[in-house]
């Protein structure tokens, strides 16, 4: 009897986990399906797999939505953000983990920084950036992303650097290495796994970011894919095949990278994740 109960509860657990998997994946699968269907087919078969797959939506959306440009803009933002955040965070984390004698206050400041809401500063940022012509500029937007994500990156890297044994630096110093050389040639190569996590996480944040991109960029040719996709959907709202194809352009690169490097993504996104 107990054995039967246990088997039954195991079975219902399996069903529940499968339902959750369907809840997570179903909507994404439908999106991919619809990207390969004609609108006639979507009307009769809105949720199932495409019976006559077509690439027409992808080709048409690519042209109409100007995705070559917007994907390039988003790639610049994501890579530039990741690089900048890595550099600034590494310098900060290195100072906190290896050089400063009393880093506690600064660490606390970083924690508070990760929790400061954008609503507190976005309004003056817009008017100041406009004043100095940093609006409608990918660099101007990237500057904001650097500031938003370096507290997170610094904390993550600091935790990583603290875990490296001190003897490494001391041995290098005894061999006559200067402070700069210890930082860039001895510790930096060891910090690579941590840097990769920071780069992936902040690159994804920048790729998906909407609030600041929507506020600061209104030139069509400078829009990242997030805000231009929204405009594209507004323009072709009843054409599901077309808009699904556009959505696929935005999540395709993320999905591929995520599947390849999932552990690093998940560890980065779930660590000290006060900033959404």
């Amino acid at each position, binding site marked *: 009897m107990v054995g039967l109960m246990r088997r039954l*509860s195991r079975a219902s657990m399996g069903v*529940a*986990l499968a339902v*959750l*998997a369907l809840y*997570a*994946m179903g*909507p*994404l699968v*439908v*999106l991919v399906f619809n990207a390969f269907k004609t609108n006639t087919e*979507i*009307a009769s078969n*809105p*949720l199932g797999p495409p019976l006559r797959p077509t690439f027409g939506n992808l080709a048409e959306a690519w042209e109409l939505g100007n995705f070559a440009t917007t994907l390039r803009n988003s790639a610049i933002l994501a890579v530039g953000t990741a690089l900048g955040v890595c550099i600034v*965070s590494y*310098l*900060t984390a*290195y*100072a906190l983990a*290896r*050089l*400063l004698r009393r880093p506690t206050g600064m660490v606390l400041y970083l924690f508070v*920084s990760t*929790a400061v*809401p954008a*609503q507190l*500063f976005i*309004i*003056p*940022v817009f008017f*100041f950036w406009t004043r100095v012509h940093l609006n409608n500029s990918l660099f101007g937007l990237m*500057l*904001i992303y*650097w*500031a*938003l994500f*370096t*507290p997170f990156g*610094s904390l993550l890297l600091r935790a990583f650097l603290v875990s490296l044994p001190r003897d490494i630096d001391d041995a290098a110093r005894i061999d006559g290495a200067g*402070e700069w050389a210890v930082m860039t040639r001895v510790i930096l190569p060891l910090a690579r796994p941590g840097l990769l996590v920071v780069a992936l996480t902040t690159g994804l944040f920048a790729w*998906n970011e*909407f*609030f600041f991109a*929507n*506020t600061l960029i209104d030139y069509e040719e400078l829009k990242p894919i997030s805000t231009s*996709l929204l405009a594209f*959907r507004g323009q072709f709202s009843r054409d599901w095949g077309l*808009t*699904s194809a556009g959505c696929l352009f*935005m*999540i395709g690169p*993320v*999905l591929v990278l*995520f599947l390849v490097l*999932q552990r690093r993504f*998940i560890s980065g*996104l*779930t660590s000290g*994740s006060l900033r959404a």
Partner: protein
Amino acid sequence: MGDGTTYRRGANSIVAARARFGLVLLVPFLALNVIVIVGPSLATAYFSLTDWTGVGPAQWVGLDNYRRLLSEAEFYAALAHNLVWTGIHLTVPIGIALVGAAMLARIRRGRLVLRLVYFLPYTVASVVTAAIWQDLLDPERGILTLLSSVGVTVPNGLVLLGEQATALPSVAMINVWALWGFLLVIFLSAMQGIDESLYEAARIDGANAVREFWHVTLPGIFPTLVFVVVISVMWSLLAFDYVWIITQGGPAGATELVSTLMYREAFERFDVGYAASMGLSLTLISAFVTIGFVVVRRKGWSV
């Protein structure tokens, strides 16, 4: 003076030089932080005490904006919507994530794959998530038609995102879809840190799965649960993306949140001083909630 003192002095100066180098390394971070976050945040505090359209000089008005805020029905309505949003986010995604993680922690085969599957929605951009669900909730060809085809009666032409009564919970549930898997992964890693012998002891005492969950799992992940509650409240108070993308606060203000209202005041109505007072109030409210939780936790409160 022996050699020891000289040596120590030498070592001290090396440590001091290192610390100076460390301070130099902080400069890029501090510069970015001051230019983008601290400076503009202080400016928000200043503008909130002025009447400003975004161009020309700002007119000092003292606390007028705050007085207006406290007398504006629109603001209270938005705050109430944020509370509804918070209520949904404190129950639905946390509930699913807790139960899902507890189940996932008990299986071995497929755990990593399922973890990945559940986490995936969190990596999808808000713009895309909104698009997917707006299509899925379409009354003519969305999942509601699927329900009626298997015999569940759906009121004719039910536009979940277009009705005043259902729009807000519907948008919130779209946000929930993006979030629950993320929370599940956080809970899962906390549960995997619980000492296995506690479960064994519970089993020897004859505890079933439910009692195990209440008496071992929940206490074991309590700090994580508090953390998740805090970020859920914070994110709910600050929510913006989904409402702005899907309903723009409509229909007839039914989904207006404090953030979207602030955005409208600042960038559409150009009532910048008033919008700034809203941004600062929102920040203070979320700071109070966060600090409140930290204090409560420090005092060792537990359920």
